[in-house]
């Protein structure tokens, strides 16, 4: 199953790209997805971020429904 991942702000800098597609098995939760990302990009361990699945911010225990567009959101700075 492929998921479309979008990185914003400082997280895009760490990833070296604004988006990518990743292949994952069908039983991901937000938390297990977060762990995959932290394995791939260890520098993100020091950063706070929220995970939005199909534009909704979800807690780590929530399963990810496929197909998913997942966005990694650093702290907001609007205003």
């Amino acid at each position, binding site marked *: 199953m492929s998921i479309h991942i979008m990185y*914003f*702000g400082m997280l895009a800098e760490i990833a070296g790209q604004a988006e990518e597609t990743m292949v994952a098995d069908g039983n991901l939760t937000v938390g297990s997805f977060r762990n995959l990302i932290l394995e791939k990009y260890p520098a993100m361990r020091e950063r706070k971020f929220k995970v939005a699945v199909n*534009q909704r911010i979800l807690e780590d225990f929530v399963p990810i429904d496929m197909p998913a567009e997942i966005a990694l959101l*650093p702290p*907001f*700075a*609007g*205003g």
Partner: protein
Amino acid sequence: MEKTHKSKKVFVEGPISPDFISKSIASHQSKTGIGAHAIFLGQIRADQKEAGVVTGIEYTAYEEMANQAFQDIREAAFAKFELTCMHIYHSLGVVPTGEISLFVFVSSPHRRAAFEASEFVVEEIKANVPIFGKELIGEKGEYVWKENS
């Protein structure tokens, strides 16, 4: 059935000009049920950072999600306060210090609702809209990422 309010374009490229703001005010002269406008303007501050003085902020956003969040804030504000109309504009791209990056304009028959709605809308934007800011520092291309407190 819940009243819905038309979604409006919020993001503008670069700073929001005082001319645009004055034209927005003028365009409400025909809405004579309004007795009070409240306007909030966010301006870029020249903060002193370790690396130097902030010269501007470069904004980016998760635009689709941000537009939905703005729409949700509009709906919530109309449900909560007695408002005649509401406009929100936020910059994307670079806004130099001293210039305006956020323009919230709420109008009501009476002042209380206008005051309260403007505060509500600004706080909601700061907390819930996925906008990101890079504070640009000095002349050498240094920066730090901004975080709302």
